[in-house]
């Protein structure tokens, strides 16, 4: 078992004919992912990396029945592409694109929610289930099948941590990259709930960063609802006081959002908190004992 994607997932790559779309379609296929279609307006009838390209999402759905969409569409057109994905009835949309305006994402999030599509991202590395499927841009070589669920707001730091788990002999059920945008489609709490309900996930690694209060909220959820062990790491304990989003932003967070407040909340919730990323594997092993 795993969460979100597995060997039965059928992937549609939106924006497959672009540079990123093409490179990562190749990467997904060599991971073993079943990429069934791509779409780019005006490029229907061609193929990319052996994958048939359609003019619209609906045409791709009619012909190949995808159940996951991976979006490499440029930021100004991402909102349109997501609405097209939702209207074609695809239940999971992974948005890799960065710099999507948050005002667009607000529209996308509530439209997708109302119509039964889950969004992961934007500005995220995607989702990977070793031995099943990878949707996105994570490097293939870092993974190994196993029973640790990984959820993270970071990109390369996640690769580093997943790679460290593999080197310590700790495989993963699924790795979820939530992305670092102000309005994420899927939150830490959503991901923790998925792992809680997955019988194969025995421990969860949660990688956070300073800023926002998502980690504090996740800590409250862990305390109330989770019975699986959680190992956490928060990047940025030494960060210089960063830019604040004006005084109004400070009112909403009121003293939360620092590495110290996140680590304290997670410790209080019973999670093991690593001071440095390289401490994670041994803390996971301890939790699994």
């Amino acid at each position, binding site marked *: 078992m795993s969460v979100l994607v597995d060997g039965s997932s059928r992937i549609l790559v939106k924006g497959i004919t672009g540079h990123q779309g093409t490179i990562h379609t190749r990467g997904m296929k060599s991971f073993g992912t079943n990429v069934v279609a791509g779409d780019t307006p005006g490029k229907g009838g061609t193929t990319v990396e052996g994958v048939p390209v359609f003019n619209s999402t609906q045409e791709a759905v009619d012909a190949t029945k995808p159940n996951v969409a991976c979006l490499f569409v440029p930021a100004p057109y991402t909102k349109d592409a997501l609405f097209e994905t939702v209207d074609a009835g695809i239940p999971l949309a992974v948005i890799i694109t*960065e710099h999507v*305006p948050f005002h667009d994402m607000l529209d996308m999030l509530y439209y997708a929610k109302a119509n039964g599509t889950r969004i992961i991202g934007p500005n995220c*590395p995607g989702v990977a289930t070793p031995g099943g499927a990878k949707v996105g841009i994570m490097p293939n070589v870092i993974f190994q099948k196993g029973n640790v669920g990984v959820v993270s707001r970071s990109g390369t730091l996640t690769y580093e941590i997943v790679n460290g788990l593999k080197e310590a002999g700790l495989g993963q059920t699924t790795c979820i990259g939530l992305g670092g945008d102000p309005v994420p489609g899927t939150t830490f709490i959503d991901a923790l709930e998925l792992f809680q309900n997955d019988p194969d996930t025995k421990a969860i690694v949660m990688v956070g960063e300073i800023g926002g209060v998502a980690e504090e909220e996740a800590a409250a959820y862990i305390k109330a609802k989770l019975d699986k062990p959680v190992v956490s790491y928060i990047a940025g304990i030494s960060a210089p006081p960063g830019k604040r*989003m004006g005084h109004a*932003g400070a009112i909403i967070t009121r003293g939360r959002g620092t590495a110290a407040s996140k680590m304290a909340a997670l410790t209080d919730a019973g999670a093991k908190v690593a001071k440095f990323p390289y401490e994670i594997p041994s803390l996971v092993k301890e939790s699994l004992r």
Partner: protein
Amino acid sequence: MVKLLEWQGKEIFRRYNIPLPKGGVARSVGDVSRLLGGTVPLPAVIKAQVRVGGRGKGGALRFANTVAEAEAAVSDLIGKEFKGEKVQEVLVEEKMPLAGELYVSITLDRSRRKPILMYSREGGVEIENVADEQIGKIWIHPSVGVLEYEKRLVANRMKLPAPAAKELGGLIEALWRIFRSEDAELVEINPLGIVGDHLVALDSKIILEDDALFRHPAYQHEGGEMTPLEQKAHEKGIAFVEMGGDIGVIANGAGLTMATLDIILENGGRPGVFLDLGGTDDPAKVSEAFAMMGEAKPKVVFINVFGGVTRCDTVATGLVNEMKRNPPAFPLVTRIRGHNEKEGMAILRDAGTQSYSDIAEAVRHVVQLEGRP
């Protein structure tokens, strides 16, 4: 983020019919008599146009009863610096007799993933100094907007006279439309003045979202608080921050960069400048970053890159080529992990670079090279 000046924000307010004092922008003393002889009545308030906060306490606001006083204030303010920001423009406005000062803003609540309307009767002071129970909050569904009953609720809680209460509903609607149509991160009026039985926006604070500037070509990202080197890096899509220590750090991705800094500080090192290549593994960017790092004159440089899509040997080759073109004046410690790391490390070692796979070991060496006790 793009922080608009007060007068720029008020130009937007004007387009959305938010009531404003009579006023105009002066860029030299010569503009003052034109404004005060025409559209703006005396007594006047002269406001330095800077983005930094705390203008009242900092002496950036002046009052004038005569044209001569106004000219003296403008002459004094233009060219003056407030918290490092030089005044190039002043706003000359009529001084209004105030019966009260309110606060109202719309911003994004990231935690609830919804816009939030905040309001208070305690306007005119920095809102973060106002007690929580004095601030009202309404979360707004993005596709619905602020509902009529919510506008009535705000007016009731603000205890406004009838004409002002009615105006407040329209003003909130205007703020909401600005927030959405102009792609704002923050739209704030503080203070929102009560003048007689009516409302007037005495100040404006609008922050626009960088990522949406493609829809608003009139506004461009301004370097603002960046140093010249930071500005140069920004233009190349590299995050470059100067911190005052002696160790230069190059990493890729915000999370990995922060983790690297955490480990250095914990080991007693002092990062001087860091460069985040972003979630990219493009070797050309590594070369550019390396060249830029030289300009910051660090004592030692630590490169911590995770090769994902691009292989480590490609990144290492790019780095070594740049070192041959421009031999660095500082010792270099590298840690390159990920795809083809063994090949990458071999290339770096052959070029005479200290190369590690263990981060703690690498950082200890970096701190040793920094040469602090």
